[in-house]
């Protein structure tokens, strides 16, 4: 078993490295040959050169600010979504209304709401608000989906032993909700990060990924724009992975992890 495990892990790594090399080669080909001279896409070496030239501090400063806004938005948006889900739990009749609130929140044009928040609260508020708005829908839908994920026989079992709705909730439905909820919280990470960046585009602040991107755009700093794009992508991926790890610690029984480890 151990032998097999380490073997398959080796293959996993070989696959990851192979894919990375393939993507890198493709990137080089497209940037250096196909799009050569257009400035649309820098070659990997040009991009790394720009990273070194600007310095890690430059990127860390802007990304750090945006991450903090995104994290605050992630916190408040999720808290609100879980609060609404909890209300649906207590009053199931509210589920239709909650879903509508979620859909409306998803359909609000961010660029229209942002300026209003900017006028009212200013500073980082639009960034935090848009991050929160971006995670609210995914988490709310995930939580509502999770609350209806309990299997009928498990609920019947509790009922047969005299458990009412409250007991079914405590013993079965809350736990059954965890897999869908963790999935939603994972997807919410990149959504929240993106929301924070969009919020910075609206102005009122002088640091952050959104600001830096807007400046890079106006100065035709293609390499820098791409450097931000790739760094933020990697950070969003890392956040997604972090929530996944937390989820694995909290709920190792989650069937989503069943394909690994079992057998």
């Amino acid at each position, binding site marked *: 078993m151990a032998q097999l495990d380490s073997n398959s892990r080796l293959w996993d790594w070989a696959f990851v490295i192979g894919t990375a090399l393939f993507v890198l080669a493709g990137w080089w080909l497209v940037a250096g040959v196909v799009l050569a001279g257009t400035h649309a896409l820098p070659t990997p070496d040009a991009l790394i050169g720009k990273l070194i030239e600007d310095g890690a501090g430059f990127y860390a400063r802007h990304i750090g600010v945006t991450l903090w806004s995104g994290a605050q938005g992630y916190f408040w948006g999720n808290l609100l979504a879980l609060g609404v889900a909890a209300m649906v739990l207590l009053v199931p009749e509210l589920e239709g209304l909650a879903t509508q609130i979620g859909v409306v929140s998803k359909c609000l044009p961010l660029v229209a709401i942002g300026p209003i928040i900017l006028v009212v609260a200013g500073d980082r508020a639009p960034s935090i608000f848009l991050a929160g708005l971006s995670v609210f829908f995914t988490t709310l839908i995930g939580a509502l989906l999770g609350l209806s994920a309990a*299997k009928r*026989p*498990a609920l*019947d*079992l*509790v*009922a*047969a*032993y*005299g*458990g009412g709705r409250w*007991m079914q909730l405590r*013993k*079965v439905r809350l*736990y059954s909700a*965890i897999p869908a909820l963790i999935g939603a919280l994972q997807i919410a990470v990149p959504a929240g990060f993106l929301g924070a960046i969009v919020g910075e585009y609206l102005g009122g602040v002088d640091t952050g990924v959104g600001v830096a991107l807007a400046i890079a755009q106006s100065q035709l700093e293609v390499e820098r724009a791409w450097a931000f794009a790739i760094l933020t992508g990697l950070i969003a991926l890392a956040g997604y992975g972090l929530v996944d790890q937390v989820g694995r610690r909290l*709920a190792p*029984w989650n*069937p989503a992890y*069943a394909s690994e480890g*079992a057998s």
Partner: protein
Amino acid sequence: MAQNTTSPRLEQPGLHLSGLSRHFRLGRETITAISDVDLTTPRGSFTALIGPSGCGKSTILRILAGLEKPNAGTVEVHGQALRRGAGDGPRLGIAFQDAALLAWRSVFTNIRLPLEVAGLPVDPKRIGDLIRLVGLEGFESARPAQLSGGMRQRVSIARALAVEPEFLLLDEPFGALDDITRQRLNLELQRIWSARPMTTLMVTHGLQEAIVLADRVVVMSPRPGRILASIPVDLPRPRTLDLLRSPEFHALQDQLLEIMYSQSAVASGED
């Protein structure tokens, strides 16, 4: 609850269903699941309820479990009107075809669940005994996903026994298992039950396991479910796999098959 020692256990009332009917509305149609079911079994006896799928046998079980209400008729268990939950009525233990184990709980805490729900005290030693009884020693902290189908059903049986039930409902408990595992678990169930006979109703569509386990086999008709026959099984216990080759077993099996086939012939003739 009267422990009447003067009259033999089997003459006290066990299950008593009278005029039980249940129908469902499906769009404009009304589907009759069971119609005018009467059934009386002695206390401490094992009854197998057998019939084709969709004959309403699971409906009867769900009514007895308090999960559904009949449209007509009454149910008494041990001489008391059915009460949902742990209340004052005889204690119920139940196992479903789908083991319905909670994925986030260990074997131990899954078996403990009914005690938590019914608000009964948890004695870890007794749960340990139950785990030994169903042969899962060493798997106390395993999660359901780490168990085979047969082991999950063992947990399900142990869980049904956790409340020390006087009244046991089994809904095709081994229906999803392979033949060999099912036969083995049936013999184990017989051993467990014989050591502590409870008023038991098992729903199944397996003739063989019905005869091996039950004191009485009740045959139901296709929908709408009615009781066609109630045949006593006077074979000595403990029943073994050798029994399956005995003429008595085959005679009984033929008798039951005849009842079932005559009825399905009538049903298809009507169509």
